[in-house]
């Protein structure tokens, strides 16, 4: 994989920010888009746009074909047994809420348990809190080790005969920890619970095979994997999807509508009420094509190499604390850190002045911030268009930030 060649496909990267070449290290928040994705959107709107699944005119057929082809491509990308198990949503948050509404609220009873980790993104935490409140189920948390990993014996100790749902990120958006989902799913299944996986940080960066993971649901977002904003995916095992009621009711998702009752289309269309996100799905399919061409193993190895390099570079700077696992094999393509006596916002502002874009804040994981005993952290995240030189610039800018504040604070 040649990152320098890949960069040519990303027009946005070719610009100066505050007089410096842009170094974009915030792909975990949202990735940039290659020309191929932008072109797919343009082509769709200029030649094939119409509403889908209705009307018999030519454009309607073309749009429907492109939309359903996108579903097939996404299904192949995550190794889903069939395209009908891929539901298009607005993103990971909506996907997880659909499971919390359609599955948890429908099937959980008082005394049932939902098992999470305290490191979850708010989108894989708050929907379960709400579902627990609505059903009388309780939340339980698998304890985190100091480096952000979890131990399988703790998973086994937390999961009980009352556990109905285990929900966890595949890769932590703050610590980068890659969790052993298959092993955890086996623990969940042994007690009859389902395994819900937040794949927002894994599907863009690792080869993900839902059958190998044996997860019951997988949620992810298009915009973090080179696709447009506003499109996401919920994958589910067919038996659960068939058993679930739709979340939204209205056009597009119905079979027969009578005055006092109606029936729904089959999975997945019953979950896609209203005109679906047609262009978004087509853009996502172009992103999937792009990633498939490069190969997800190559993407994983590249991100991994950069994360290791960044870890080493930042570790050498006095006063920098890095959070998350030291073992590179347990870490996805990001590094979260703090600079002694410099708030993450201030670090980010100094880096921005050098053209380096990182994330600063609580990363939508307030409970985890409390465990780390920090109010905020800085996060640099990497993707296929980043290079070692980007990380050298990151390390140099972090040194600048440190020195600037040392000087300013006297």
């Amino acid at each position, binding site marked *: 994989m040649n990152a320098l060649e890949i960069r040519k496909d990303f027009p946005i990267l070719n610009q100066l920010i505050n007089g410096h070449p842009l170094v974009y290290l915030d792909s975990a928040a949202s990735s940039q888009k290659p020309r191929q994705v932008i072109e797919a959107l343009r082509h769709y709107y200029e030649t094939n746009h119409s509403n889908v699944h209705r009307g018999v005119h030519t454009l309607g057929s073309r749009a429907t074909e492109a939309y359903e082809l996108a579903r097939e491509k996404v299904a192949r990308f995550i190794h889903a047994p069939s395209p009908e198990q891929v539901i298009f949503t607005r993103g990971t948050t909506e996907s997880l809420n659909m499971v919390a509404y359609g599955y948890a609220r429908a099937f959980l009873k008082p005394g049932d348990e939902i098992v999470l980790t305290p490191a979850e993104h708010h989108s894989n935490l708050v929907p379960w809190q709400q579902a627990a409140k609505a059903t009388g189920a309780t939340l339980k948390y698998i304890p985190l080790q100091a480096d952000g990993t979890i131990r399988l014996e703790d998973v086994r100790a937390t999961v009980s005969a009352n556990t109905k749902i285990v929900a966890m990120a595949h890769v932590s958006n703050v610590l980068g920890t890659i969790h052993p989902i298959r092993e955890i799913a086996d623990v969940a299944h042994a007690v009859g619970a389902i395994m819900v996986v937040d794949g927002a940080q894994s599907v863009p960066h690792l080869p993900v095979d839902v059958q190998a993971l044996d997860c019951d649901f997988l949620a992810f977002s298009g915009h973090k994997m080179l696709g447009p904003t506003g499109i996401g995916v919920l994958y589910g095992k067919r038996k659960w999807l068939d058993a679930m009621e739709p979340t939204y009711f209205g056009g597009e998702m119905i079979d027969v509508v009578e005055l006092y009752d109606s029936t729904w289309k089959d999975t997945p269309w019953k979950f896609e009420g209203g005109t679906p996100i047609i262009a978004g799905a087509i853009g996502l399919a172009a992103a999937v094509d792009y990633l498939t061409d490069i190969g997800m193993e190559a993407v994983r190895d590249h991100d991994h190499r950069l994360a290791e390099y960044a870890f080493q570079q930042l570790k050498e700077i006095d006063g920098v604390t890095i959070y998350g696992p030291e073992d590179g094999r347990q870490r996805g393509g990001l590094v979260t850190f703090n600079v002694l006596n410099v*708030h*993450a916002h201030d670090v980010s502002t100094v880096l921005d002045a050098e053209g380096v874009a990182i994330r600063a804040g*609580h990363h939508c994981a307030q409970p985890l911030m409390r465990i780390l005993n920090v109010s905020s952290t800085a996060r640099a995240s990497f993707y296929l268009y980043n290079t070692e030189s980007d990380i050298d610039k990151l390390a140099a800018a972090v040194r600048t930030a440190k020195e600037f504040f040392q000087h300013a604070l006297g």
Partner: protein
Amino acid sequence: MHLDDLYRQVIMDHYQHPRNQGELPDGIRVDLKNPSCGDEISLRLKVENGVVSDVRFEGTGCSISMASASMMTEAIKGQPVETALQLNRLFRAMMKGEDVDTDALGDLEALHGVSKFPARIKCATLAWQALEKGVQPNRE
């Protein structure tokens, strides 16, 4: 844009040595959070006969949010509530990049540079938001 325009010496001084820190047991208390970044402030105000007779704060956050809080407490302490609110209006106008009477703002003028860093404006206004809530609890 220059970092020195943002991080003026007086700001760094307030960040390092915040004024009027601590509790005020019998005062009005306003706890505010910037949900997007996690900055927190707890502002305590004592208002007697329409005057801010005492003010203290505690909090965690970046240099801009903490320095702005410290500078605000100095500016409003001993001032009539009306004057404090007038300063609030001037300060917010300055954050929007409007031309304002900088003499009236005194030291607060040092935060002028924040207006050129849109992502940081909410850091600077957090304490002022708390002030508004404290002295105008029934607004809206």
